């Protein structure tokens, strides 16, 4: 059996009286797209927050390429090569698009200006941002120097997705990346996800959109009531069965 | 006795000052503490948070009554508004002595140990008048007051100075209603050097010919001097002030301040503590005492009694 790139075992996360994760497992295999589906409140976001260092789980273990790791901040996860698009987007409204793309990993200028005066390479970052957005096909964004607060919800989401795709080196996690996107923009994101996978990077995709999930996923992780209820193969399970398992209307097939 | 405060000999004396930042009141506190150890009583001090903070003084009086103090020494922030609280203290059997500033009416306190702030102003005004008359100079006066609130010390010193100088002050209870052309203007300093400097600078801009500066206290005077020095006018301008603190008297000696009216906060506080100690022992009440004000200058003027800075330094308060 191949070692999972990213693995979680028995994750528990409680918020006061609410138990968001009740001992959840997860395995992400090399080069696959793993979709995570589940009802609202099933603990999907909580699960990937734990994997990306955004929250510290109360119990449970996380393994990266088989080695146990602990992420106490999002930076730890990022250092390990895990990039995440959070459901809440995590962009800085008053900064421009380029600044948001490079937030926390700004490029400095060459020479003394960069090393001594620590000056940013604004133009370089703008150009690179332009390239990334073009690659995503976000045509409606005209100028990477525009402040993010002036973008529509969908445009903002595109910025967050572009960032994760550009910088992920080991795992890319996307929490409902197409929720606010238009048809064309969703298409672009799905293509991007496939591209990322083709680069050899495994992707975790959380989505409520079953056609999308069944189109791109290699395996589907079904989350229910804070636990992994089943992992199914989209080629052998129908959409309605997956939904039935998700809502508890059907027991998962014995793997 | 209980607690740290009321252990010394059982007699507790409260000292309530206007602020605990102004060195004048800090020295008063020290004077009270010294007198306390020699009279075998304990002093507990309180202060307002800033000039004019009447409420903190009211709270302080009440807390002192509750603590079982025998007497209260107070420099009232608002000499009228504090009276009802003082009445309460006296009704509870405490001896209340006003220090430095009279209550309104003065009879509201059992006694007043104070300098006459009006007289303090008057002395420096008379001194300046005599000096300018001798040198046959036409005065152009800047007045650097405390704050916009027209508190009594501020008003008394300012108006005393002007009357001493021979200016018609119109309403004696109001700063700034004079019409005398010799007055260039008033500005406020918060009684601190930074305020003194800014106020002086602005008034100098208004009229660079200013040659006589009245200041509410010596820190303000020090700030005003810096402004004059920066403008290259320190030699041509006479600064007068009130307080008689050691840094102030040193400034008199150094020629920064022409004359200052020295007051005696240590003495006020000492007399006050002793009076309360005596009252606690035999119930006798003290008389009003003027702790005096002395003009300190190294350039004595005709017709105004004064001491020199050497004497001033021996008698200064900190």
């Amino acid at each position, binding site marked *: 059996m191949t070692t999972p790139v990213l693995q979680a075992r028995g994750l528990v996360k409680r*918020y*006061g*009286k*609410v138990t968001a994760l009740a001992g959840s497992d997860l395995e992400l295999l090399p080069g696959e797209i793993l979709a995570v589906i589940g009802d609202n409140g099933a603990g999907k976001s909580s699960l990937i927050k734990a994997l990306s260092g955004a929250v510290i789980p109360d119990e449970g273990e996380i393994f990266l390429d088989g080695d146990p790791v602990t992420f106490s901040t999002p930076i730890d996860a990022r250092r390990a090569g895990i990039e995440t698009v959070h459901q809440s987007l995590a962009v800085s409204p008053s900064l421009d698009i380029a600044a948001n793309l490079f937030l926390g990993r700004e490029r400095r200028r060459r020479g003394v200006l960069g090393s001594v005066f620590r000056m940013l390479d604004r133009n370089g970052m703008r150009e690179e941002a332009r390239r990334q957005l073009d690659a995503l096909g976000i045509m409606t964004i005209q100028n990477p120097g525009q402040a993010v607060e002036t973008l529509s919800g969908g445009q903002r989401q595109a910025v967050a997705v572009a960032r994760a795709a550009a910088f992920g080196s080991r795992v890319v996690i996307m929490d409902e990346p197409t929720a606010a996107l238009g048809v064309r923009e969703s298409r672009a994101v799905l293509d991007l996800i496939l591209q990322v996978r083709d680069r050899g990077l495994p992707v975790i995709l959380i989505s409520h959109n079953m056609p999308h999930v069944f189109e791109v996923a290699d395996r589907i992780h079904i989350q229910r009531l804070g636990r992994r209820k089943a992992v199914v193969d989209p080629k052998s399970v129908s959409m309605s069965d997956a939904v039935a398992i998700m809502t508890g209307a059907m027991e998962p097939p014995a793997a | 006795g*209980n*607690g*740290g*405060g*009321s252990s010394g000999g059982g007699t507790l004396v409260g000292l309530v000052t206007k602020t*605990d930042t102004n060195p004048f009141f800090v020295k008063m506190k020290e004077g009270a503490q010294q007198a306390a150890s020699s009279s075998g009583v*304990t002093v*507990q*001090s*309180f*202060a307002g*948070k*800033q*000039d*004019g*903070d*009447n*409420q*903190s003084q*009211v*709270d*302080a009086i*009440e*807390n*002192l009554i*509750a*603590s*079982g103090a025998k007497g209260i020494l107070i420099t009232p*922030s*608002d*000499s*009228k*508004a*504090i*009276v*009802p*609280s003082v009445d309460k203290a006296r009704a509870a059997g405490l001896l209340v002595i006003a220090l430095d500033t009279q209550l309104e009416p003065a009879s509201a306190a059992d006694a007043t140990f104070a300098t006459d702030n009006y007289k303090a102003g008057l002395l420096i005004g008379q001194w300046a008048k005599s000096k300018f008359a001798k040198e046959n100079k036409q005065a152009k006066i800047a007045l650097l007051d405390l704050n*916009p*609130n*027209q*508190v009594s010390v501020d008003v008394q010193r300012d108006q005393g100075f002007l009357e001493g100088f021979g200016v018609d002050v119109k309403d004696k*209870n*109001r700063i700034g209603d004079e019409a005398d052309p010799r007055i260039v203007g008033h500005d406020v300093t918060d009684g601190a050097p930074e305020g003194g400097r800014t106020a002086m600078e602005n008034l100098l801009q208004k009229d660079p010919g200013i040659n006589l500066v009245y200041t509410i206290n010596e820190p303000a005077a020090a700030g005003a001097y810096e402004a004059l020095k920066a403008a290259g006018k320190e030699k041509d301008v006479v600064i007068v002030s009130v307080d008689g603190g050691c840094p102030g008297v040193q400034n008199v000696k150094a020629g920064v301040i022409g004359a200052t009216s020295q007051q005696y906060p240590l003495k006020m506080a000492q007399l006050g503590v002793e009076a309360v100690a005596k009252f606690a022992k035999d119930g006798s009440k003290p008389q009003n005492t003027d702790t005096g004000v002395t003009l300190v200058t190294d350039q004595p003027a005709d017709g105004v009694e004064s001491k020199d800075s050497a004497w001033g330094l021996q008698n200064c308060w900190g």
Partner: protein
Amino acid sequence: MTAVVEERDRSLLTRVQHVLHAQATIGPAVVLLASVIVFALLSERFLTPGNISLILQQVAVVGTLAVGQTIVILTAGIDLSCGAIMVLTSIVMAKVAAETGMPGLPALLLGFVVGTLCGLLNGVLVTRLKLPPFIVTLGTLNVFFALNLWYSGSATIRGTDMPSLLLWTGQTLNIGGTRITYGSILLVLLVGAMAFVLKNTAWGRHVYSTGDDLEASRLSGIRTARVLLSVYATAGLIYAVAAWTLIGRIASASPQAGQMDNLDSITAVVIGGTSLFGGRGAIVGSLLGALIVGVFRNGLALAGVDVLWQTMAVGVLIIVAVSLDQWIRKVKP
């Protein structure tokens, strides 16, 4: 071994935290209780009925201001001008009565009108110009204070020149041997009434909602501008009540009073557990907050602590009390 003990300790702490969290204003209440116990141990004079009544009197003015300040802060605002409004209205009440011989009731009502108008001005500036309340009240603070000095001529008005109604708040009522001023009673009634209104009326909900998320409230069909106007005007009225209490307390009206009361009232509100970001908090907490500061000042004074260290203690108290309150709230699911 140690790990196990630690585990048990932590769970005990957590259990305490849970119990404390059951009630909303329990945080400040715990702090108040703890400080009362400590000071009672330090001085036997502390827990006498006379001293308790004293503390109540001493917090009456700041406590009343804190009621108005609380509703402003609940809307995510802040009112730096509360002290200035109080002083201005106290001068108006007292001076009009003293100089024109106006009877007590109309003078008092005139003061209430002035206070309400001052608050309304703040509200108009906040809602029409859409300026942050901090800036508006920083500006009007100076304006009201200057008006106060100008109108009063910086002169204090004596209680003996005023109708007795204006001084009524300083009169005492004998309740079971303890003498409580009407000013303190007024404060308690005001807190009760405002707590009722906030909890049980639509207006109260709209105040919370507006502070929580202004735009969402607007989209939900709340007339947020009207809510804000009414909050600032009501706060102004409450500051006028504080002015009445102030006159009774010092038996005079002083134009110098109240300059520090801005920060003091905010201190009471935040110690009382109301969030400066709006939408969360309770009036009763602010009363407790004012009492905590009052107990500290009084207790430290009785213990003979120098003012210098009282200042420092209040600084530390603010931080500790708010931290504790936040710790207790953390349980929130």
